[in-house]
């Protein structure tokens, strides 16, 4: 029974909770099982925040991520706080502003996720969607069709084009590297 644990981390307000929800919904659209949990402090903005998703072909009991197979870090604080438990076969995807440490894992990608959202797509607030495009391009976690549908199901009306663009931009930064 295959099961993938994903930890999405950054600063409160970067939309990582939504990022996790979309990923879990995309997995369900693909016919898989998914659980999403979060951890946050009392503050609404700032601080290190994380959203976790488990995708599996079978039942999921313990809902929290123990050893992430995929770890996203958009800020240094979140990276430092949550990188510790990464799986030895795990993949780290960090924003290029993050100084990555020497950890045992399969692969580390440092990519301009925040810059791409801000400069290429034009809105820093879509960094979470850019990250989704990046994650899925690297890991093929869910089908691209399900991911796009899940994004469009969740984003506010009138922002569909912007978010579609963010998803494509996220995908492309992997290929430009």
């Amino acid at each position: 029974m295959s099961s993938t644990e994903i930890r999405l981390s950054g600063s409160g307000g970067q939309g990582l909770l939504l990022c996790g929800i979309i990923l879990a919904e995309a997995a369900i659209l693909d016919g898989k099982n998914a659980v999403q949990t979060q951890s946050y402090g009392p503050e609404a903005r700032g601080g290190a925040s994380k959203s976790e998703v488990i995708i599996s072909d079978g039942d999921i009991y313990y809902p929290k991520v123990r050893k992430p197979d995929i770890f996203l870090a958009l800020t240094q604080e979140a990276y430092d706080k949550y990188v510790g438990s990464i799986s030895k076969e795990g993949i780290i995807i960090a924003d290029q502003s993050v100084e990555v440490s020497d950890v045992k894992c399969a692969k580390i990608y440092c990519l301009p996720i925040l810059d791409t959202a801000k400069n290429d797509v034009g809105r820093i607030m879509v960094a979470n969607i850019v990250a989704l495009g990046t994650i899925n391009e690297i890991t093929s976690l869910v089908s691209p069709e399900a991911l796009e549908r899940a994004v469009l199901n969740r984003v506010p009306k009138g922002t569909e084009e912007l978010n579609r663009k963010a998803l494509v931009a996220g995908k492309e930064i992997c290929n430009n590297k």
Partner: protein
Amino acid sequence: MTNNQAKLMQGNEACLEGAIAAGMRFFAGYPITPSTEIAEGASERLPMVGGKFIQMEDEIGSMAAVIGASLAGLKAMTATSGPGMSLKLENIGYASLTEIPCVIVNVQRGGPSTGLPTSPAQADIMQARWGAHGDHPSIVLYPASVSEAYSVTVTAFNLAEKYRMPVILLMDEVMGHMRERVVLPDAKDLQIVNREKASVPPEEYLPYKADPDGGVPEMPAFGEGYRYHVTGLIHSENGFPTTDAKKTATLLNRLMKKIDNNLDDIVKYQEDSLDDAKIVLIAYGSTARSAKSAMDMAREQGIPVGLFRPITIWPFAEDKVKEIAGKAEKIIVPEMNLGQYRSEIERAVAGKCEVIGINRADGEIITPEDIYEKIKGVL
């Protein structure tokens, strides 16, 4: 697993949808983490189904409004967390004695006092049983999945209506905020219980007339022409206060027997791999999920572990726990408190087997590894 109706849903959201499916048409509350999504959702959803939502000035007022709405004939609910629960207790006791059906959701967070607002705990287990003063019956339920947050909320309303009493639904921060794939049942397939209305004309109606052996009085709604008195004082069949010792004893006895005579109907639980189990885990709510994972880990290593998961926390599944104690060598009770349910289990087990706790009250969830290590340690 593909199903068109499968969707991702949050525990708090499923609880609210279950309540609406059960017929809840009134919600009064005062928002508090980690229960806020229930109130927020109710403010949006209730007007769509002809219901009413009120944000009250505080938790005491919320509970009072819920009682009033129920007397007026609506199925009513409130949702809170520990600090709010403490405030609601006075009126929960009132609803117990006056036999007013309602559902109170407590999504537990770390305590005591304002404690750890965003962290899970299961430390209101004893408060749920004995928080309100005086001898009184309790029904307390605790789901362990998002799907159950829906179905157990329906059960909470059914039991509240059937036995005319407040029912407490416990969750915890993990249960409330977790999102999970669910396929909800069709509303038309649900079994819904409604309170018994008056079978006699208003002039013959006695509001608290019932079989002394656990009978449930009939309950017409205020506004339907039945005028009666409701008081938190001990009352006789006509609803007016009394200090008569015999009438007092009859009333309290009837209230307790509503529950004691119907344990088979009220006490719900899940048994998993108990037949050959030498070690039995007893766990509830989100901790039961860790216990299930730990059980699977142990079984893979050939260790005969079983899981008993109470869904009804109170009344306590005493007979079942005694039966387990007669067969198992050890009982392990993981819970996010310092041993509240374990003490009740130890009372029932009465030394027939060893009872071991795994306890955390630091805002962190108990992991499958914590439980698995304990299993190996006691082998």
